[in-house]
């Protein structure tokens, strides 16, 4: 029986692993390593991106943290994003697309939650001043996703934390978590680690070619100081020799920080739609089947959903007629999709099991502010 053979093979494999653990070479353990696509390690630690002591996660030399003006919502998880490029290499600037990174680049995103005393996960977190060390005392590490640039293109690798290391889980994972909400209530939800193919569901931003790309490292997302502090990440990358062809900052696009009330409502909303929806809802994306395009480049109101009827939304309409009805968020399909947690109808399809209340509020305010009405077409 194949099952027995399978089990036997795995036993042998486990034995082999144990042997290797005790006979493998040892080096300083501090430097980043690269692997060919047919030899990705099972343990995250083998990449050498981090030094994890059990109490803190420290970035290795050459591994730089960055963050985005407005990030993707992922069930209120905190995210530590890093990039590492081979010594002496640099990314090429692009005004609107993902930067062109050198072969060998490793981008990581570590998802974690702060914990309450009673072991529930929390939505709020204060990032440390020290940008190279993350104390994990009151934090639970969930997963670290890697994007690795090979000569053939980017590969996506999901690693799931368990004890002192994270382990490659090609098929992803599901973990039930309990979150302490700001109102004192607790909510249980399935935290989803995407499978490798599900990584492509977002990162194959051109669904026709299927080629994976990082989403965050674009000029408009990075154009800010790390964690909102002084300075500018693009200038820092440039001065470190990690970014070439950067124009003067005045010419670089900038997405709004969706939480920053001092910025225009429309800019904050478009930034939110861009990072949360634009990877599929773009003219080449998986969701071009819907005719609804939400990335930053879209200028047509109709493509953005104004008075646009759905195509194949099924129950995803929530009984509503148009994606966006100006002035009427509660009649807009877009809001329905964000407010539901039904896996068959919610948006985004991947990456959340909870409602992002702050995002919903923002987009409701924006739709409320829009003028006009949707009128029945006549044939005259």
């Amino acid at each position, binding site marked *: 029986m194949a099952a027995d053979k399978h089990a036997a*093979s795995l036993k042998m494999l486990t034995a082999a692993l144990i042997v290797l653990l005790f006979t493998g070479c040892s080096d300083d353990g501090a430097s980043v390593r690269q692997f060919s696509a047919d030899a990705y390690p099972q343990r995250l630690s083998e990449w050498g991106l981090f030094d994890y002591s059990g109490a803190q996660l420290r970035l290795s030399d050459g591994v730089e943290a960055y963050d985005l003006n407005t990030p993707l919502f992922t069930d209120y998880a905190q995210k530590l994003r890093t990039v590492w490029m081979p010594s002496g290499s640099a990314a090429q600037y692009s005004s609107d697309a993902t930067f062109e990174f050198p072969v060998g680049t490793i981008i990581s995103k570590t998802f974690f939650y702060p914990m309450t005393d009673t072991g529930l996960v929390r939505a709020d977190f204060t990032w440390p001043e020290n940008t190279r060390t993350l104390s994990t005392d009151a934090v639970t590490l969930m997963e670290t996703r890697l994007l690795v640039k090979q000569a053939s293109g980017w590969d996506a690798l999901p690693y799931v934390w368990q004890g002192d*290391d994270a382990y490659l889980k090609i098929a992803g994972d599901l973990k039930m978590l309990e979150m302490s909400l700001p109102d004192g209530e607790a909510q249980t939800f399935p935290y*989803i680690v995407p499978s490798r193919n599900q990584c492509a569901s977002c990162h194959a931003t051109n669904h026709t070619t299927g080629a994976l790309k990082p989403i965050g490292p674009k000029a408009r997302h990075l154009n800010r100081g790390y964690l909102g502090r002084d300075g500018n990440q693009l200038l820092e990358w440039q001065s470190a020799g990690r970014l070439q062809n950067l124009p003067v900052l005045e010419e670089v696009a900038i997405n709004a920080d969706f939480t920053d009330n001092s910025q225009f409502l429309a800019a904050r909303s478009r930034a939110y739609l861009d990072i949360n929806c634009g990877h599929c809802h773009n003219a080449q994306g998986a969701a071009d089947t819907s005719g609804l395009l939400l990335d930053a480049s879209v200028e047509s109101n109709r493509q953005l959903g104004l008075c646009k009827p759905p195509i194949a939304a*099924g129950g995803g309409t*929530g009984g509503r007629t148009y994606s966006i009805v100006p002035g009427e968020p509660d009649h807009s399909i877009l809001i329905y999709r964000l407010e539901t947690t039904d896996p068959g109808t919610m948006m985004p399809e991947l990456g959340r099991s909870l409602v992002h209340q702050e995002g919903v509020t923002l987009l409701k305010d924006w739709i409320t502010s829009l003028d006009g009405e949707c009128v029945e077409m006549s044939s005259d």
Partner: protein
Amino acid sequence: MTYTITSHSLARFLPVIVLSAMLSACGQPESAAPAEQPTTQISYEEQLRLALETASPGDVITVPEGVHPMTRSLVLNTDGVTIRGAGMDKSVLSFAGQLAGAEGLLVNASDFTIEDIAIEDSKGDALKVNEGRNIIIRRVRTEWTRGPHTENGAYGIYPVQTENVLVEGSVAVGASDAGIYVGQSRNVVVKDSRAEYNVAGIEIENTIHADVFNNIATNNTGGILVFNMPDLPQLGHSTRVFNNTIVTNNTGNFAPPGGAVAGVPAGSGIVINANDKVEIFDNDIADNQTANILISSYFSAGYSSDRETAEAFDPYPEGIFIYANRFRDGGNAPDREELEMLRLAMFGEEGSLPDVVWDGFVNPELSAENVLCVDNGESLVINIDAAGGYENVTVDMTAHTCELEKLTEVVLAAN
């Protein structure tokens, strides 16, 4: 349960693990215990997922007999893979306990074959194939087992933006939109299949060159639909619907309001909406209580807006040719007030609407002959003149006594 799914995928994956362990043994942390996931207790769900995630072109992934519970969507991104069960009533992927994912099985790949398997009770679409060439869906059953329900997933078998697509010998039951839905595709054959208790049995939308034949569509809200929707990369035309049995599609519309099919009246045999060059012949069409055939423009779709109306969208059906069908009954209890009033006024309490009901919208630059030709014995067209406020309702066949050039057969490229 037996674990025999992964004919060679998993077998090939194992050496990879070993190899990677050998190459990457440097720099292990202090903890030497192999804390890997408990490998001997991988559920069938995880085995199948791993087989899909690590598939190589040419792989045949076999799914054994049994009901296999799934909690998350399955995704396949590798070209040239076959998924093969032991029969559509034997190998069942059950998503009744699904916690995450918008589909049952999502395929983003070409040269894909799936056969002899069932996908049940997914939260969203059951089987979605998004972009790909040479797709074969053979003897696949998609079903929501509680029967018609608004909260069932939208589509059963759902290839979209695909080319060279064969759906054959399949069964689709209970979809809250369309059981078999082919969207924005090119060169499509749907045959020898059965669609029952869906809102739309079989729907061809924004698709170029489709042959739909030898199917049974019954107990749906609408049997077979050929639609065009605006705002999409491709407008459809050239669909042949022939040799099908389209009877008793009288199930109340249970689609969530808002979508296109929510506007389909219960009791619709065939519905053409805003599509062009559709040939309907040699079908058995009977007992569909609103109408055996409905021809309508986008204006009758229940919604439409004039705000930046999609450029290049043609809201009018044109080039519809209906001949040599066998009609029986139908049109006796229309699911629309205006149609019921027309029935009573023109045909009496016991009367029925004619076999073909047309909303009467014509492109101002064209005439009725461009819309609809009928050569079907005694069968009549009723133009309900929805365009003119139902003022000039007529069953005059003068404008429809015409013939159109017949469409060519869809020939699928060999693969």
